[in-house]
């Protein structure tokens, strides 16, 4: 009855939420970009750069929140590059996005190596500590899962609500969704398509940067090469799974986190009998399955990937 043991184990749920946290930031960020009509494949690199920048800021003496800010600004900067290339210049969003991923990743590694030319073991910082909310954290299962997390996880939940509110209930959110559905409508009402799209990509990329920072400032306490390890791509898939809705994005990230945490535990339980790679594969396989099921009904922002130029048809 290993399976049941895992599912009733508080550690498992806590791990699921922990794994989900950077994905929540990432998927929210990608969702904002895409709602405005711009695919941001720079996410994988922006994660790396955010992870690096947050950690580096703290290592250089900034406060933890100072590090988060540094990560957000770094993400925003790379987002601005992507936005400039794809929005006013109208270049291929795929090419520009992959370019930004390569650029941001290399820039992060370069900065790390330049700052620390000859260390063998990466220097550590004191990361965010889990906040033990009294009473609430004693609730079985839910308590440890939700109330023994770091402040960044809470920030991720808060951001979900905030992004939902902004998109659904504010004039800016309505305009942003219109920009991703029919930019001509936005232009015809006297708003700036360029402004909205660039703003969305920059803001979304800032969120991605914070997602990266979670890795070095909460999940771990140092920066490693290759530590992002495809999380960005997962987010891109999760946006579709979420049908571009923040609430479902949160759900999707948590689901993936649960799959991943489950997989690790299965591996320890059954590792002897089954090749480990099978377990590693499982969360991705399940994500693909969930995607296939969810994406059939997905309604794309109609202007996603389509560049728009003023005064052309």
């Amino acid at each position, binding site marked *: 009855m290993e399976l049941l043991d895992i599912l009733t184990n508080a550690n498992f749920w806590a791990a699921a939420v922990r794994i989900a946290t950077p994905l929540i930031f990432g998927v929210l960020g990608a969702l904002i970009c895409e709602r405005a009509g711009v695919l941001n494949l720079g996410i994988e690199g922006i994660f790396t750069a955010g992870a690096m920048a947050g950690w580096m800021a703290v290592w250089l003496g900034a406060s933890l929140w100072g590090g988060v800010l540094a990560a957000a600004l770094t993400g925003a900067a790379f987002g601005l590059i992507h936005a400039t290339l794809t929005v006013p210049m109208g270049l291929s969003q795929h090419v520009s996005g992959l370019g930004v991923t390569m650029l941001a990743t290399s820039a992060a590694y370069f900065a790390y190596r330049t700052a620390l030319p000859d260390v063998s073991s990466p220097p550590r910082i004191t990361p965010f500590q889990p906040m033990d909310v009294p009473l609430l954290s004693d609730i079985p299962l839910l308590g440890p899962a939700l109330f023994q997390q770091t402040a960044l996880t809470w920030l991720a939940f808060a951001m979900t609500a905030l992004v939902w509110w902004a998109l659904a209930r504010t004039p800016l959110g309505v305009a942003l*969704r219109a920009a991703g559905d029919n930019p001509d409508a936005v232009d015809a009402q006297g*708003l700036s398509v360029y402004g909205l799209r660039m703003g969305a990509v920059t803001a979304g990329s800032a969120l991605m940067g914070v997602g990266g920072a979670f890795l070095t400032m909460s999940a771990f306490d140092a920066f490693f090469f290759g530590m992002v390890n495809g999380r960005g791509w997962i987010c891109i898939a999760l946006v579709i799974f979420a049908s571009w809705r923040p609430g479902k994005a949160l759900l999707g990230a948590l689901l993936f986190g649960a799959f991943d945490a489950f997989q690790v535990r299965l591996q320890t339980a059954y590792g002897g009998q089954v090749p480990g790679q099978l377990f590693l594969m499982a969360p991705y396989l399940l994500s693909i399955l969930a995607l296939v099921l969810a994406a059939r009904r997905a309604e794309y922002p109609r202007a996603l990937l389509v560049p728009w130029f003023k005064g052309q048809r």
Partner: protein
Amino acid sequence: MPPTDAPHVLRLRGLTKRFGPVLANDSIDLDLRRGEILALLGENGAGKTTLMNMLFGHYLPDSGAIEVADGADGALRALPLGRPQAALRAGVGMVHQHFTLALNLSALDNILLGAEPLFALRRRTGAARRKIDAIMARTGLNVDLDAPVGRLTVGERQRVEILKALYRDARILVLDEPTAVLTPQEADGLFQTLGAMAREGLSVIFISHKLREVLAFSHRIAVLRHGRKVGEMRTDEADLPAIARMMVGQDVESPPRPPMTPGEPVLELREVTLAGAGGRAGLRGASLRVHAREIVGVAGVSGNGQAALAALVSGLAAPEKGELLLRGAAPARFDPAAMIAAGVGRIPEDRHHDGVVGSMTLAENLIIERLDDPAVSRAGFLRRGRIRAEAERACAAYDVRGQGPDGAARLLSGGNMQKLILARVFERAPDLILANQPTRGLDLGAANEVARRLLEARARGAGVLLISEDLDEILALSDRVVVMHEGRLTEAPARDRAQIGLMMAGRGAEEAA
């Protein structure tokens, strides 16, 4: 008729716009008075949309000036160019040829988009709703404000577009081919509303290819040709031939329809039942016969099963009940390839979407229905030289004007795109031609050209099934008229406008007589 001494509200002077080699607008002057309805006419590509897009700030003119009476004092002031925001503020509203609505937003959101301050923590829609409700009550332009626009019908979407302009207190309303997508009833309703609003002081410019509605509803007519304004006249002094002459530059005659003896049936439907796609009306026991050397017109308000009928005859759907016979034999399969092989030629309703592949060249578009024809390909390779030579010839024969056989089809104007499709269909000498709204959005000259080709095909021995919302077109071309209502087809006993109109509304033939 508004007093001709009403104050001016708009003055365009010397507006010029060039797109690469094309001089789309050449120094155009235009005036508009308060409460006036001006119809802007011209052939496809004459530059009507371009002119209006400059007025609204979508395009920046190369030269020229625009003055609008933007305040209470009624004085004309220069409008900052190239900025929709400025035009909206000055009271200019525009309903575009291709709607500018975000389909994922509600009607209310579309109307308020850009009208409320962008940076606010939440939206205050109460006052806005009241204002829109008042406008709807005054004008009769009713829509469900909370429905996503994607779920509204075309007519409702257009109402949202007009509400958008009125909500911004438009005093000048521009409508670019507002009736191209409306049923005749909806179009009449729209013009009633516009007329009432004009009497209250709204000034209207509308673009249309339908001269009947221009004559019925406008006060003044301005005509563009090849980017220049070639004339203006008062509507009460204008008549159809005069307008047509001014638009085309020469007399326009609709092609004659000599009587003919119909031959064998080429298409027969026997009690066909078929569900409509996507919740639209299907066919319910529809029977029909089209003979060789005969044009059969299908009249009816769109949405009564025309789409299903077209899908059936083009092989996109199979009958659920009943039979379809081509020259007396059932087709091998119900798919487009089999239907084409059985001698069906199709002029689809949406030429941009289903008619051509926009990114492919004219030559490629011409052969796309017969890739395995030995004249086109041998051993799996296209015979490029031959294809090109044939395309040259077809483009010349059908007068397709554009950048030649190697230009992309998407760059063609609507009329030329339709001629390209005609070339592809008629070159195969089909037995049956399905012509679905073949002249929608086409100017007079291009529409006549389509009519002439259809009559030519009939003389050659083809049967034509003509589906159209335009009753004038049906009456002008058809030997017989059948009326489509709720998935059934009824033969009209006579070619009588009023009677057919009643049958379109669902009365039986005897009742309507």
